[in-house]
């Protein structure tokens, strides 16, 4: 993918690299009887790229969604840039504006054009003028390679294009951290790479990222750290090379061995 300038010159990232930006502290979550997250703690530094992997039902997507409170949690705390996650209302909305989220099913607003999808947040949340927001949106759409589709509706785009628009939509808010919840799991194989390329580019630009994925290649290439989850717990954390070549836990060894046989 062609490299381009960072999103805007007022970007939140790049400065103060290395401080904890997202701190998940002893978080527990129950769905009725089901214990979805068990005493999960995780700290992600500014500029760090953390890839969360694990089998289905391990709680990795739940953790990702809990970080911007799309899911509530039972106990524990989550802090973003030093601020405790508010429970609801305007304060929560304001905090979410600083946390970009990319979903497995894209979730582009079906009734709005690609351009309007990207400008909605900046105009309505950040109170930018329409002209400024559209200018910035076109730069972002160019960056993710879908500038030609700006006037189309999401339904007229391929899955890979939709997901790249979704990334642009999240970036338009100039977030401190980006959450990716299995961003390539709903894509045809040939479209996975076009999305991963955009994500690798973001990682190289210093964006703080938490990525839930099954793409081990991306984890090896772009992650600073791999977090392995199973049964609602963080089982193992390591740099990618160490995790993939010498996992310490039996659960991780088992998981990795199943990947390689296919």
């Amino acid at each position: 993918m062609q490299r381009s300038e960072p999103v805007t010159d007022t970007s939140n990232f790049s400065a103060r690299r290395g401080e904890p930006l997202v701190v998940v502290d002893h978080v527990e979550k129950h769905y009725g009887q089901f214990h979805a997250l068990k005493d999960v703690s995780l700290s992600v530094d500014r500029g760090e790229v953390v890839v969360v992997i694990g089998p289905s039902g391990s709680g990795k997507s739940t953790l990702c969604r809990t970080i911007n409170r799309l899911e509530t949690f039972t106990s524990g705390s989550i802090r973003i840039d030093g601020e405790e996650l508010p429970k609801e209302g305007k304060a929560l909305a304001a905090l979410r504006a600083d946390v970009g989220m990319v979903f497995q099913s894209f979730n582009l607003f079906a009734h709005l054009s690609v351009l309007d999808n990207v400008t909605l947040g900046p105009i309505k949340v950040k109170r930018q003028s329409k002209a400024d927001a559209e200018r910035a949106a076109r730069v972002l759409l160019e960056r993710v390679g879908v500038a030609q589709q700006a006037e189309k509706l999401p339904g007229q785009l391929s899955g890979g294009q939709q997901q790249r628009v979704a990334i642009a939509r999240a970036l338009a808010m100039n977030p401190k951290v980006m959450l990716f919840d299995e961003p390539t799991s709903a894509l045809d194989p040939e479209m996975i790479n076009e999305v991963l390329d955009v994500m690798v580019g973001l990682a190289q630009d210093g964006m703080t990222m938490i990525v839930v994925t099954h793409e081990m290649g991306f984890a090896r290439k772009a992650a600073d750290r791999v977090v392995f989850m199973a049964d609602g717990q963080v089982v193992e954390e390591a740099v990618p090379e160490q995790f993939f070549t010498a996992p310490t836990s039996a659960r991780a060894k088992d998981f990795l061995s199943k990947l390689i046989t296919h």
Partner: protein
Amino acid sequence: MGIITDNLDLWSSTLLGTLVLFVAGGLLALVLGTMVGAMRVSPIPVARAVGTFYVNTIRNTPLTLVFFAFAFALPPLLGLRLTGDVSLTLAICALGIYTATYVAETIRSGINTVPVGQAEAARALGLTFGQVMTLVVLPQAFRSVIPPMMSVFIALLKNTTVAAGFSVVNLGSVRSYLSERGENQFIAIVWVMVVFVALVLLLSWAQRALENRWKVAR
């Protein structure tokens, strides 16, 4: 045709009365119903409770009873003198408040057709509940409920005739006036029917136009 041409004054004033009741009552129903529909899915328990109570009481009450309440019970309470304008306003309120319950339920079913991911994506951008509803969820909900919503408005159009019983002039009053002028009541009723069929056909045409315009949305 003599029954029409000889009584043009009557037909035009009653048709105007029906249209005023329909348009004003419809606007009130649409605004109020949309608000109540949104309340019923809101995260605030009090709002949900108020919305549910409103729908369950007013929708379960016969329209004539709602009219009785507005035409006879309310004016003494508010110290209103029943002039023509006051009666018309009260009739519009009765129709709007009654129809709003149906609009609310239709909107709510439309909201349920919008994938939950749409609202999640909107919340993740930092939009407030009100913005999520007005900018993302309701526009898509409206598109998916055009046919049942139009049925609600067709019912409203026909319900306007109930106002005739409460001295608000509309097409429902035509028969009695024409009868006083010595016209054949049966023919009068047939012509009123023809006018209603024509008006409803207009609404059906509007429905098709809206559906065609919005069908690319998903």
